[in-house]
């Protein structure tokens, strides 16, 4: 048989293998369409969250099941759809492809690649809405998720499986904190999912470029629903992100998911709900806007050994208007999460970056996941900072103060300076411990405040060069007297 014949035979075989015939499907008729929403009659047995297919192949998602009509959001271009079109049921619940192939890719809210690297090959699909893992499958947060940011890892530690809200006004470095957390996961056996909701495409492109440059795309998936895409995409994107994460968590891996930001998702959901004629409530949000976020964030979990031991850590971001954290959506998400990182614009403008408000930020469960050395040094740091906050107002009259108060102010200023950290420069936990220890024990009291970061740099370089073993010991969580003595010795050697 010649080559062409073989090809033809193979083609024929493939075509023969194709299932012929027809199946009965249920149809409905579009009676109203507009603003990305379609209402139709018929479709009597339609399920909630079912995918519908319009005449031109566009997909829809049934959300409102009413007495006579079905309300659906249109996933894609709605200009081709007109009154009187037939709509087919597909019998499938909204789901997206998941798998190893997703890592390193940029996808849209439907799991389709948008990075121009071709189709993503995956074998499995997961439904976008899944019930969160139950009580018996979970265990308390007990392993740390290091962000590489001193102020966070020391004072508001995050554990694997925790949900920690990042909240603040625009331009306070919320995304920067999240991106640093992704960068620091390199070599930590973590998968990261960054969900960009209603963001400028240029910002997403910049973030992807940064991640690529730092080699972080090797373990990261970016889910993007751009500002130019219709509202349903922004609504679906976070669920798509957590669905991709769940695949890895089911395989026993640790995953970090960042939702940037949930305010925009709530806006998109409000838009859809109003168009679907659901009654508006406070701030015109529908009644179930709390459930919108709680069912998403409940899917973050720390599974126990029996269920594979995977985890999903969630870092949702909320943007406040004029520092108002008592608005509807911020209060909702604060009450759902296990703590919040509060970023303030006045701190940011004063040059304290990350602009963390240490007094208002909390982590309700992360403390138990901190490594022992960090727990020890963070205790003194917290005390120093709290005392400093009370005395800060007196700092201007430093000449009239007694030496004890003066000392506390000096210490506090140095500590605040130490917690400053440039963007894209996460620090490993052992180096954080070393520098906080040195400052807390007074080894940096003689250094002028403006030179603190330089001194810290030098100390770390010195320790890396000559005390590599000690750093390893700290990283493993060793805090025996022997180790402490060795750290002291290092600091002394250095300060001379």
């Amino acid at each position, binding site marked *: 048989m010649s080559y062409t014949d073989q090809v033809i035979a193979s083609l024929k075989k493939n075509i023969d293998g194709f299932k012929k015939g027809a199946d009965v*499907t249920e149809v409905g008729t579009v009676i109203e369409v507009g603003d990305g929403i379609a209402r139709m009659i018929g479709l009597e047995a339609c399920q909630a969250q079912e995918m519908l297919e319009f005449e031109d192949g566009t997909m829809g998602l049934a959300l409102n099941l009413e007495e*006579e009509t079905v309300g659906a959001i249109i996933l894609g271009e709605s200009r081709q759809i007109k009154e009187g079109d037939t709509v087919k049921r597909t019998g499938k619940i909204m789901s997206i492809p998941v798998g190893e192939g997703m890592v390193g890719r940029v996808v849209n809210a439907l799991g389709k690649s948008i990075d121009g690297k071709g189709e993503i090959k995956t074998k499995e699909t997961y439904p976008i809405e899944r019930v969160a893992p139950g009580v018996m499958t979970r265990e308390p947060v007990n392993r740390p998720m290091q962000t590489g940011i001193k102020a966070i890892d020391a004072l508001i530690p995050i554990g694997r499986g925790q949900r920690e809200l990042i909240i603040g006004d625009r331009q306070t470095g919320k995304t920067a904190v999240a991106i640093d957390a992704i960068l620091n996961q390199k070599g930590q056996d973590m998968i990261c999912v960054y969900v960009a909701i209603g963001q400028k495409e240029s910002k997403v492109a910049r973030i992807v470029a940064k991640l690529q440059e730092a080699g972080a795309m090797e373990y990261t998936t970016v889910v993007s629903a751009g500002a130019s895409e219709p509202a349903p995409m922004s609504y679906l994107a976070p669920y798509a992100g957590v669905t991709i994460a769940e695949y890895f968590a089911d395989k026993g891996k640790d995953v970090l998911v960042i939702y940037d930001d949930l305010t925009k998702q709530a806006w998109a959901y409000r838009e859809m709900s109003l168009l679907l004629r659901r009654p508006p409530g406070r701030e015109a949000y529908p009644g179930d806007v709390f459930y919108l976020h709680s069912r998403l964030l409940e899917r973050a979990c720390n599974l126990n050994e029996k269920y594979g031991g995977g985890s999903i850590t969630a870092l949702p971001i909320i943007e406040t208007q004029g520092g108002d954290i008592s608005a509807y959506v911020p209060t909702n998400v604060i009450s759902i999460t296990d703590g919040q990182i509060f970023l303030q614009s006045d701190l940011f403008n004063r040059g304290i970056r990350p602009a963390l408000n240490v007094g208002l930020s909390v982590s309700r469960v992360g403390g138990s996941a901190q490594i022992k050395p960090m727990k020890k040094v963070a205790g003194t740091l917290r005390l120093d900072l709290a005392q400093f906050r009370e005395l800060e107002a007196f700092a201007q009259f430093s000449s009239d103060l007694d030496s004890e108060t003066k000392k506390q102010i000096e210490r506090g200023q140095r500590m605040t300076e130490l917690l400053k950290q440039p963007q894209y420069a996460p620090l490993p936990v052992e180096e954080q411990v070393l520098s906080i220890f040195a400052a807390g024990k007074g080894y940096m009291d003689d250094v002028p405040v403006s030179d603190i970061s330089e001194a810290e740099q030098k100390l770390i370089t010195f320790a890396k060069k000559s005390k590599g073993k000690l750093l390893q010991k700290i990283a493993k969580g060793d805090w025996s007297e022997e180790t402490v003595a060795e750290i002291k010795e290092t600091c002394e050697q250095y300060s001379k």
Partner: protein
Amino acid sequence: MPALIPEQLGKILYEVTEGKSGKELDAATKEFMHLLQEKQLISKMPYIIEAFDRYSKKQQGIVDLKITTARKAPKQLVSQIEKIFGDKVETTVAEDSAIIGGVVAQAGNKILDASVKAQLSRMKHTL
């Protein structure tokens, strides 16, 4: 409350006129027209009549069958399909060259799409 849709108005019309004739029927339809006027729905009349037709057929157990073929359908094929749906069948036969070949049978909300066009698009999906 969202406005009444043709489907509901069709049902109302059926229920107010059911089993009535002569003067009674005239009075009922007049009442119905008043309702339409009040709700500013007279322009929706064609849709309401369509919905009324559908609903009354459903109530009487008549299956409204629509058969579409690419070329003129042979009588035998039509009667064969009619048989599947029982004796009370009202059939409309249409021709539409866009389906290329095969047959599409629609009964109420159910559609049996055995057209070549549908099969081709399905093949496109699976390959």
